[in-house]
């Protein structure tokens, strides 16, 4: 599964790790993130993310 990077702050969402602190289990693909999910570092919404190169 592909990693996504936050355009605002550079945080990388890694599906293998998920974001357990915010209720996202490891193995969750970026497209399956809940709508309410925001970047854990800067608070940006998912539309600020791009596929990591």
């Amino acid at each position, binding site marked *: 599964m592909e990693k996504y990077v936050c355009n*605002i*702050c*550079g945080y990388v969402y890694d599906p293998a790790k998920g974001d357990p602190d915010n209720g996202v289990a490891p193995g969750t693909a970026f497209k399956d993130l809940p709508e309410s999910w925001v970047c854990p570092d800067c608070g940006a919404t998912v539309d600020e993310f791009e596929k990591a190169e």
Partner: protein
Amino acid sequence: MKKFFKAQQVSPNVWWVGAIDWNVRNFHGYLTDRGSTYNAFLIIDEKITLVDTVKAPFADEMLARISSVIDPEKIDYIISNHAEPDHSGALPAAVAAIKPEKIFTSAAGAKTLNLYYGDLGYTAVKTGDSVDLGNGKCAFVDTKMLHWPDSMVTYYDRDKLLFSQDAFGMHLACSKLWADENPWSVMEYEVRKYFANILNLYSEKVIALLDSLPGLGLDIEVILPDHGPLWRKDLDKIIQLYRDCALQAPVPRAVVVYATMWGSTKVCAEAFADGVRSKGVEVETADLLVNDRSNIMTKVAGAGLIAFGAPTMNNQVYPAMADIMNYIKGLRIKNKIAFAFGSCGWSGEGAKQIAALFDELKLEQPLPMKQVKYMPQSNETEEFFNAGAELAEKLLEKINNK
């Protein structure tokens, strides 16, 4: 009448050309009871370069200081390390006076400056990029979210200087430019306050950046922040202070933060504090109605044990407490022992909301929240004393078991 100010030389080829804001007391809600400075620097090389500017009302002061060294029109480049208006507000005035060949900033900086001031002609740079000034060069390092998306720092190799923008800075207006000329106790307090109020939420990024510094291969002899005194001696000491702030390790100190309407929560706060004191742990109480938010945050950051107490008003936690709860939540305090308490007439949402916030922040609460009705009775004040003593012991255990 033209303003009269002089520049001050900080290294063979660099001059401080900033502004001193002696009388600012409210900096976007941060109590600056010692004022502040907006530091800008002039590099005299074949390509003359201005690093950062000042808050807009101080543009004349900066231009006067520049003019004491060189005609501003001779400046070739401007570097904007941080787009926040206290460092970029004078950019339009500087551009008008200087007509620079290029303005270097990060990619996010270019976007942000464009929104603030329109397109003044920005050249985006990133980590690994550098610009040749003739005899020396300026190398750029991205420091995204420390503390804005646009933040970056610049290293000038000829004089071994790091222009660190807000990092390692403090709000302090003083006539002595160097940190080592000022009392360390003041430097330490103001750096801790600045870190607690501006950078605490990015503590992990600060540690990562400090860890990455040796790998960048920069030979840094002087650190020039954008606020307050400059660092030329014992750089290890200021770097270690930053690491300490960022680690948020438990310290043997407690703070009891409270608000009170008819004195009941205050009675509980004082009994709790006296219990903490009985175990030899340093403690202070802070009434939210007379202490500034930024000073409360400084006290919270400097404590291993925090107790927050408030009345309930209109079925909500008391407003002044809601304000500080919102503030510490955003600043992501961590690794504290916490205690929620309060007094209420009937419904009692106040202390419950504080306890819920502590849970959300994953702070350890060894004792359940405690709330009294109307006025604490003598057995209850004793329970607060005992709670203070018990949590002080827990704090000492936590520190000793580290």
